[in-house]
């Protein structure tokens, strides 16, 4: 079993995503939500961080937050998966605990 890490801050404004990726273990899941979903997009200055993390962790983005911000799923980093609110609950339930990187 492993942990679910949530990141709800923009990676350009706070270092929450950066620290989450440094301090989370292989096999854990990372869910980007609220302003955190900006970290899921390809072609940004932080995309390399997320791509590296995908080698040994799962990365998810919350669909309603992408949609709210006009972010097209087709322009996300390859390997990032979109989940809805029910998927968020499933992730919370299937992991040992949820750690929020606020």
């Amino acid at each position, binding site marked *: 079993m492993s942990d679910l890490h949530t990141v709800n801050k923009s990676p*350009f*404004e706070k270092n929450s995503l950066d620290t989450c990726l440094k301090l989370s273990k292989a096999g854990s899941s990372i869910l980007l939500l609220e302003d955190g979903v900006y970290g899921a*997009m390809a072609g940004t200055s932080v995309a390399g961080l997320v791509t590296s993390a995908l080698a040994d962790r799962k990365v998810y983005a919350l669909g309603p937050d992408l949609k*709210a911000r006009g972010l097209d799923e087709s322009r996300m980093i390859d390997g990032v998966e979109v989940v809805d609110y029910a998927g968020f609950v499933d992730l919370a339930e299937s992991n040992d605990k949820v750690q929020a990187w606020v």
Partner: protein
Amino acid sequence: MSETKNFMFLNRRAPYGTIYAWESLEVVLISAAFEQNVSLMFADDGVYQLVKGSDPSEIGMKNFTPTYRTLGDYEVRHMYVDKASLEARGLTADDLIQVEWEDWETEESVDNIVEVVDSAQAAELLDASDVVFSF
């Protein structure tokens, strides 16, 4: 009546995650109503405020992108976007909404007042403003 000043609203926060973007828009509308010369500058995560296609219906918030489109009608004449901020986020001018402006008296019109500027231009524009409001 007091003199007209050049107001610059500097927007550096993403929409929806915090209330800054919406609050800025409220003050912009108030300032325009008081007949000040109002310009907007979008930098850092503020550039996300102008990304087109937003639909916050599933997060229970009001979609305020259409309000930016009406700013031309409130005599906001300039909306500047920092080029480096767009590039860091993998965005181009094509990803942004367009805002039309028209002077009802002279019928002079501009198709799109959203203008991408480089850092040197942004610095000049901020320096030339009488007041800069930060959001």
